[in-house]
């Protein structure tokens, strides 16, 4: 059994890292918004999904104009990413303005319900547009990078198997790292980042320090949503098929990642994302093997949710978060 697990390990790790990178970037959006508003932005998974659709639409547009033939694929990739980020960023700002800001003083339960509402509305709007344009809401995405190559782990040790990597997976790693490092620098080194941290710590005091709280919140939503949207594009390119319902469960898992890393903690979210991605891939590849076929890959979501529940119950502050004392 262990020999088999070891044999698949390189491939499982690569696939898990690719998935984990996607979770990590989506988790950033949850963690940023939560850090500032203490609101679980449930619509974030749907923003990710919208990003996937916007990116695909732009790609179709490029193809329609015959641009893809002329441009190197990575340039169109970056262009598509940029457009998708702008659109989803604006979408995030709009959602904040319409559905969250009027409720900032309302009980938590109410804003959470509103967030669920936004999530459903987005799912159906995207379904509607996709269905109207293509006749089916499951959309196949043309691939920019077709290639794949093999990493020869077996030359290192006979116990390990080889792993196949898609060129697109490499691109995911690059984009994810660039985004995460960029965000980290932005939050920790710039003036606006400082304002953001100040608002997260204490909104009222920050506003006394002549920080425009509303602007900072909008900026947070813009950046968080843009990150989510860009991941959508990466996802669409990696798996080649998208539908309006991909955001919900993926969003939940990304949220799990954010919680695991300590919600409100940006580096924690990145770490949590990678851990959840790898664990999920490992579970789906090996659960059946480890339980003698009784509990197979179909239980992998149970696994992910179980992690979430266990973390929330026993270490609600996450691995890197600080415990919050409740104010009376």
């Amino acid at each position: 059994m262990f020999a088999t697990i070891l044999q698949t390990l390189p491939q499982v790790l690569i696939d898990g890292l690719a998935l984990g990178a996607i979770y990590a970037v989506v988790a950033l959006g949850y963690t940023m918004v939560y850090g500032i508003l203490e609101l679980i932005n449930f619509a974030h998974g749907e923003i990710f999904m919208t990003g996937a659709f916007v990116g695909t639409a732009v790609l179709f547009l490029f193809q329609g104009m015959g641009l893809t033939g002329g441009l190197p694929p990575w340039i169109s990739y970056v262009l598509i990413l940029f457009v998708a980020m702008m659109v989803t960023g604006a979408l995030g700002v709009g959602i904040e303005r319409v559905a969250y800001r009027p409720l900032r003083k309302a009980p938590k339960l109410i804003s959470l319900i509103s967030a669920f509402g936004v999530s459903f509305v987005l799912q159906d709007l995207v379904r509607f547009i996709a269905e109207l344009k293509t006749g089916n809401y499951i959309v196949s995405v043309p691939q920019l990078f077709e290639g794949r190559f093999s990493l020869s782990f077996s030359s290192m040790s006979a116990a390990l198997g080889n792993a196949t990597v898609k060129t697109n997976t490499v691109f995911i790693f690059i984009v994810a790292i660039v985004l995460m490092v960029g965000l980290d620098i932005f939050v920790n080194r710039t003036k606006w980042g400082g304002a953001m941290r100040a608002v997260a710590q204490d909104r009222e005091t920050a506003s006394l320090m002549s920080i425009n709280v509303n602007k900072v919140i909008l900026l947070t939503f813009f950046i968080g949503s843009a990150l989510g949207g860009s991941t959508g594009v990466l996802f669409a390119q990696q798996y080649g098929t998208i539908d309006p319902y991909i955001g919900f469960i993926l969003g939940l898992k990304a949220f799990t990642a954010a919680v695991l890393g300590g919600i409100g903690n940006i580096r924690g979210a990145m770490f949590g994302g990678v851990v959840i991605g790898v664990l999920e891939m490992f579970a789906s590849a090996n659960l059946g093997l480890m339980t003698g076929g009784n509990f197979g890959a179909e239980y992998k979501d149970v696994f992910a949710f179980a992690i979430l529940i266990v973390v929330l119950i026993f270490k609600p502050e996450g691995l890197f978060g600080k415990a919050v004392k409740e104010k009376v």
Partner: protein
Amino acid sequence: MGKLANLKASLQGSKLAQGILLIAFTLVTAGAVYLMDRSVTAFLLLLASLLLLYYTSFTNGIKWIIALVLLIIVIPFATSGGSSYESYMEVATQCGIYVAMALGLNIVVGFAGLLDMGFVAFFAVGAYTYGIFATGQANNFISGDLFPLSGGTFWIFILLGGFMAGIFGILLGLPVLRVKGDYLAIVTLGFGEIIRIIFNNLEKPVNITNGAMGLSSIQPPDLFGYDFTFPHQFYFIVIGILLIVIFAVRRLEHSRLGRSWKAVRENEIAAQSMGIPLIRTKLIAFAIGASFSGMMGVVFAAKQTFIDPTSFTLIESTTILVMVVLGGMGSVPGVILGASLVTILNLQVLTEVTNWLNQLSMQGIINVPTALSPSKMQRFIFGMILILVAIFRPNGLIAAKNRKIPKEVVTGDESSNSKTTTSALRKVRSE
């Protein structure tokens, strides 16, 4: 305008006028339902007579009696006129099932303030409790070829289903007690999904739920050899359970327990410092809420004669939450209204409008793309309801009211002797 104001004033003043309006309205709508072949609007208006009844200023007892007359005699009789009898009754039955579930969720979300996003899991537990034993399924893990149990056991299973769901409610509640607020929502959501996935996969190592294939040919209930198969028969079962549920909820709401729930909802720490046992209070909320859902699960399984895990997805949990939020969290009449509105919207209005649009586009009058078909817009409509209610009417259609207690009862006015205070208290209690 003056006339309208006059009318209003006279309506407010006189119970007789209200009574006449109510009777006239009921008669007209009932007549319309009875005579017209198939009119959803007339049926809806007939149901609206219950809402009208709620707004009259009769005493509670009279309202209850009129409501019973409407539910047990007028509505079944009026709908039996046309060919759409069973179709109406199906809608009414499903309405009843959802009302009971929404009332259950209302205890958890509305009274105790614990946002539960996986509520449909308890419905599933109830449905599977009956489904497994009322088919040959249980033979797989209990030897002796005893199953399927006959339809006569259905009546016991209503209680058993409620009990099982209650146990699950406590099981879920125990670990969940440590988390609060939005985390609670996520954990319950995760639990709901876990239970569904487990039901979907539990055909090995021991075949308990038959997995994705579902359980079919579930025994219909029978009472002294009389089989229940048609919706109009289930209607009466559902009304019966519903009355018990409503009665229980009304009693609970103003009981000591109900007040503790509300105290926990408003401020957990303050409630605890007033001596309310937090854990017990929350667990009871989960258990009671879940058991209502479980009972209806049993009815659902018997009515559908087939259950599989696809009936218990996240969207169902959300639908029930929409009902509670739309009607008004914590408000019993509100939740009943919300649940009825959403169910009818879902089952009748959307389907009906879709059919109508189809008809039109087939005759070439207008061309509606299938993407726009209203029956697919369910999520959109629910989402909009959630957002709009959250922003503009956070208390829902019929806001919850706390019962007012006269000042002298609370302060125990010194000039009055203790006798009057206790009698006033008694009066308040008996209300």
